[in-house]
C-alpha cells in the first residue's frame, strides 16, 4: 500500500499558490489581448475587401489548426532570431495565447454576428446608419449576448492550455508542480494536489458558465423582429 504524505507538499504550498497566480495572470492577459484581437480578425474576415478577408481567414485557420505547443516554441525559440527582441517565457506565453485564442474568438464573433437577423441590418440602414454605426450599436450588442456561452467555454479551454507555458519554464502552476515534485521527491502527492487544484478552479468556472448560460436562456434572448 502506498503511504500518502501531503506534509511536504503543504509545507511549500506558497510555491503552488504563486504558480496558480501566474496561471491566472497569463490567462487574464491572453483574454485581455485575445478578445479585441479576435474581434478585429472577425471584422476583417467579414469585410467585403477580399484580400483583407483572405488574410484574416488564413491567420484564423493557421492558428486553429496548428498545435499551441508548436506555436509557443515558435514564439519562444524562433521569433527572437527573426526580430531582435529579448524573449522571456512570460512574453512568449502571453503573445502565443493572445494570438491563439484570438483565432478562436474571431470565429465566435463571426458566428455571433452572422446569427443576427438580416432585418436588423436593414432597420439600421433605413434610418441612415453607416456600416460601422450599425455594427457597433445594433449588431454587436445583440451578437455579444449570444456569444457568451461559447466565449466562456473558450476561456476555460484557454485556462487549461496555459499549462503548456511550463515547457518554456514560465512559473505557472504546472511548472511549480514539477519544481516541487523534484524538490520533495513526492510526485504522487504533488501532482495529485495540483490536479485537484486545477479541477476545482476549472470546475467552478464551468459551473459558473453553465449558470450564466441558463440565465441567458431564461431571459429569453429573443430576436424580436
Amino acid at each position, binding site marked *: 500500500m502506498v503511504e500518502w504524505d501531503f506534509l511536504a507538499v503543504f509545507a511549500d504550498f506558497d510555491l503552488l499558490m504563486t504558480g496558480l497566480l501566474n496561471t491566472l495572470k497569463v490567462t487574464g492577459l491572453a483574454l485581455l489581448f485575445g478578445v479585441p484581437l479576435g474581434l478585429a480578425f472577425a471584422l476583417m474576415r467579414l469585410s467585403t475587401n477580399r484580400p483583407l478577408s483572405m488574410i484574416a481567414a488564413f491567420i484564423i485557420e493557421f492558428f486553429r489548426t496548428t498545435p499551441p505547443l508548436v506555436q509557443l516554441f515558435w514564439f519562444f525559440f524562433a521569433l527572437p532570431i527573426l526580430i531582435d527582441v529579448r524573449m522571456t517565457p512570460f512574453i512568449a506565453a502571453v503573445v502565443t495565447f493572445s494570438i491563439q485564442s484570438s483565432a478562436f474568438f474571431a470565429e465566435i464573433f463571426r458566428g455571433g454576428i452572422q446569427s443576427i437577423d438580416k*432585418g436588423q441590418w436593414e432597420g439600421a440602414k*433605413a*434610418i*441612415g*446608419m453607416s456600416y460601422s454605426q450599425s455594427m457597433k450599436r445594433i449588431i454587436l450588442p445583440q451578437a455579444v449576448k449570444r456569444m457568451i456561452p461559447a466565449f466562456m467555454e473558450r476561456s476555460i479551454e484557454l485556462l487549461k492550455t496555459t499549462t503548456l507555458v511550463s515547457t518554456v519554464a514560465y512559473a505557472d502552476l504546472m511548472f511549480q508542480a514539477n519544481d516541487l515534485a523534484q524538490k520533495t521527491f513526492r510526485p504522487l502527492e504533488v501532482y495529485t494536489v495540483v490536479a485537484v487544484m486545477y479541477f476545482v478552479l476549472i470546475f467552478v468556472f464551468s459551473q459558473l458558465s453553465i449558470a450564466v448560460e441558463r440565465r441567458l436562456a431564461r431571459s429569453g434572448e429573443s430576436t424580436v423582429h
Partner: protein
Amino acid sequence: MSEIVRIENLHKSFDKLDVLKGIDLSVSAGETIVLLGSSGSGKSTMLRCVNFMEVPSDGRIYLHGDLIGSEQNGRMNYRESELCTLRTRIGMVFQHFNLFPHMTVEQNVMEGQLTVLKRSQTEARDKARAQLERVGLADKALEYPARLSGGQKQRVAIARALAMDPDVMLFDEVTSALDPELVGEVLKTMRQLAEEGMTMLVVTHELGFAYHVANRVLFLSDGAILEQGEPQQVLKAPKTKRMREFLDGHSLFKLPD
C-alpha cells in the same frame, strides 16, 4: 404641387434576373401612392431602390430635383455616406418591423436621431415622445419590443422612421406579417399620416386602403408599370386583363358601389 421624388428609367437585376425593366415615376408632395402587383412583380424591389436599400442597376433617382449619386463614364456611382444621408430623409417601414430588441421602444425611436442626426439626448427624447404620441404608444415608451403586439411593434417602427423628419415615407408590406385583427390599427395610423399631408409610397395587398387613402395607384407587372391612375378608376375599371385577374384574386375586397 412640388415634386419630391423623381424616378427615371429605373432598372434592377439580380444576377441574370431582370426584376425592374425601366420604371418612371414622379411623386409630388403630400401624395400617397399605392403600389399593387402580384408577388414577383417587382413592387418591393422598386420601393427598396428609392432609398437605395438596393442599388439600382441603371436609371436615375432625384430627391427635390437633386440627382442622387454622380455619373462617371455613363455609370452611376454612389458614395456610402451620401446614401446614409439620403436615407435619413426617406423613412422606411418593413414587413418584419426590424425593431432593435436590445433597446426600449423610446431608445429605438431615439437611435437614429442620436447616432446619425447627432441630436442631443433631450431633443431626441422629446421628439421620440412626440412621435410615439402620434402613433398612440406614448405609454409604451419604456417597454422592450418583445412585450408589444405585432401591431404595436409596427407603429413603433413607424414612429422610428417619422422621428427622422423624413420628406417621404416608404411602407413595404407593413401589414402582411400581422394577425388579421391587428391590421386595422396600423392602417389607421397610416391613413392619419396621409391625411396630415405626409408623402407616402406604399406597397400593400390592402385594396381597401388603396381605394380610400391613395391619390394614385400603380399596378406593376413583370417589372414595369402596367396601369396607373386614381384608385376609383384603376380599381373599378381596370383596362388590362392582368389587372382584372389580380383584382379577382382579392375576392375579400368588396368595392363600395
